[in-house]
């Protein structure tokens, strides 16, 4: 492995690529499903707290670790002499396999819905029943096989750079289309109830520890943290780019898309009579039976539906490629296999690993039962494994890189983070908070099994009774929109202007020296 590493060519390219990689099913499928399951705004509050209090720091730590060591996860943990560094870093290769095994199943749903929308297969039907029947049909085998073939072929041919380039156009287009869908969704008759569900906090739900653990998992999942991906991207970061402002820009850009997806789904879900489904076991497929119904009600629904799922498929496939890539890189570099052989081998294993989730769809039962296994894997990976690995990266920077880690974060940053609060925050507050969340979860499980007496609120009162749009709801809407959409625009413009200023100053300096 050489010390020389390629870096991003342009700053905007870097931000677009990072947001592009991070925007995908995490925003459009996973966020609305969890947000609905845990009570709309009741989920948003822990989400915002954990995003700013923990996830942004985790992202900065992964970037600092990657940029400082110029290595992928396995080498990075080893280089800073983290105990069992190579074994823990190995998660950066094998961990994404588990994620891919069900992520590609969801990608295959997206691919099916491209054809279903263009052909209008679900038009005039109950979309929930349509989705359930698709899960138990031969189509799922075909699209799953096709999805695995697509990612493996792209990686075997080494054309992933082309896909990433295409994503720079596709992802902003997806964002624009999502705005159109959200506009249609909030203007449907009866949509106000959905807006209220999404934006009115029910404070009692905050006592539910599960909400916090789910929100923690989602902020890590959506930002591609805890999988080694951001660590690899960090190793490509140029030294002159300040980490804090860029991390803020990427995190805000990503969450803006999630918030928008919520506005596209919840108002429509309530307006179209899916309100009762939200929060149930079948809500994991929420996006796939609410959005098609919205497309059906839009003029040119075939076209918009098809286009939306094509764009989403690009986002999902680009993410799936970045998930499959570390294993291929490992087989190529360490085992000395060719790229094609590595891609074929990983493709076959990942295809087989997806089978239990597909066969689960063939059982006779509710939609929730057909998705039971997939939802369990998502809980273990998305809510447990990813945050644990993310925290290990934070500990690695806080305790093993010490001042080098904090200096790396602040290197060439215009707004520097003071060591006075940054050190205790990363070394103590974040690990203690996360540790506490996991301990409380464990206690809750023991309590439910009757091993310990009831001490933690076991069930949050998440029943939703509409009371109309209240001032609190309006304040929440304004706060969330200004914070994320305004914040994203502000930080991105700021980051890019600073970059331009720097270039201009360098040019002027060169001119004088001539």
């Amino acid at each position, binding site marked *: 492995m050489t010390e020389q590493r390629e870096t991003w060519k342009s700053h905007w390219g870097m931000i677009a690529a990072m947001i592009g990689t991070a925007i995908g099913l995490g925003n459009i499928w996973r966020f609305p499903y969890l947000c609905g399951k845990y009570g709309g705004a009741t989920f948003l509050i822990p989400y915002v707290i954990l995003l700013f209090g923990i996830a942004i720091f985790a992202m900065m730590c992964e970037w600092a670790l990657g940029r400082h060591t110029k290595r992928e996860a396995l080498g990075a943990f080893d280089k800073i002499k983290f105990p069992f560094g190579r074994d823990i870093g190995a998660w950066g290769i094998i961990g994404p396999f*588990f994620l891919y095994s069900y992520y590609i199943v969801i990608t295959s749903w997206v691919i099916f819905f491209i054809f279903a929308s263009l052909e209008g297969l679900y038009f005039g039907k109950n979309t929930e029943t349509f989705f359930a029947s698709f899960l138990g049909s031969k189509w799922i085998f075909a699209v799953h096989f096709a999805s695995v073939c697509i990612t493996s072929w792209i990686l075997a041919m080494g054309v992933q750079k082309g896909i990433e380039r295409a994503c720079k156009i596709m992802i902003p287009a997806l964002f624009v289309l999502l705005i159109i869908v959200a506009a249609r969704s909030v203007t449907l008759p009866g949509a106000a109830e959905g807006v209220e569900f999404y934006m009115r906090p029910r404070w009692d739900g905050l006592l539910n520890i599960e909400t916090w653990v789910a929100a923690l998992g989602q902020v890590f999942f959506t930002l591609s943290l805890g999988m080694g991906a951001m660590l690899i991207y960090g190793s490509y970061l140029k030294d002159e780019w300040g980490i804090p402002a860029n991390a803020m820009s990427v995190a805000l850009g990503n969450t803006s898309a999630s918030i928008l997806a919520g506005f596209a789904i919840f108002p429509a879900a309530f307006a179209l009579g899916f309100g009762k489904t939200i929060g149930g076991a079948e809500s994991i497929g929420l996006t796939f039976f609410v959005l098609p119904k919205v497309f059906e009600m839009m003029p040119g629904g075939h076209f918009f539906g098809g286009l939306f799922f094509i764009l989403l498929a690009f986002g999902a496939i680009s993410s799936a490629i970045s998930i499959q890539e570390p294993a291929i890189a490992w087989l190529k570099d360490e085992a000395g296999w060719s790229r094609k052989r590595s891609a074929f081998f990983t493709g076959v294993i990942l295809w087989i690993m997806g089978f239990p989730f597909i066969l689960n769809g063939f059982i006779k039962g509710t939609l929730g039962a*057909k998705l*039971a296994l997939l939802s*369990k894997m998502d809980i273990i990976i998305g809510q447990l494994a990813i945050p644990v690995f993310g925290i290990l990266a934070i500990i690695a920077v806080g305790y093993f890189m010490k001042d080098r880690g904090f200096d790396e974060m602040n290197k060439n940053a215009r707004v520097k983070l003071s060591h006075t609060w940054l050190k205790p925050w990363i070394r103590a507050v974040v690990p203690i908070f996360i540790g506490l969340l996991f301990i409380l979860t464990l206690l809750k499980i023991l309590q439910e099994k009757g091993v310990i007496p009831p001490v933690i609120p076991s069930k949050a009162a998440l029943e939703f009774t509409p009371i109309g749009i209240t001032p609190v709801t309006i304040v929440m809407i304004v706060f969330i929109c200004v914070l994320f959409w305004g914040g994203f625009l502000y930080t991105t413009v700021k980051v890019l202007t600073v970059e331009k200023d720097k270039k201009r100053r360098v040019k002027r300096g060169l001119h004088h020296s001539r």
Partner: protein
Amino acid sequence: MDFTILADARFGWTFVISEIILLYLLFLLIHRLVERKLKGK
């Protein structure tokens, strides 16, 4: 064929947890073997 067991909660949890642990351990073993082979060279 009947796949109802896949939706069973106890089977589901056991399946996903053991799959993750077993494959992770298997990968660590392969990784060590590959490293040893590389060192041997």
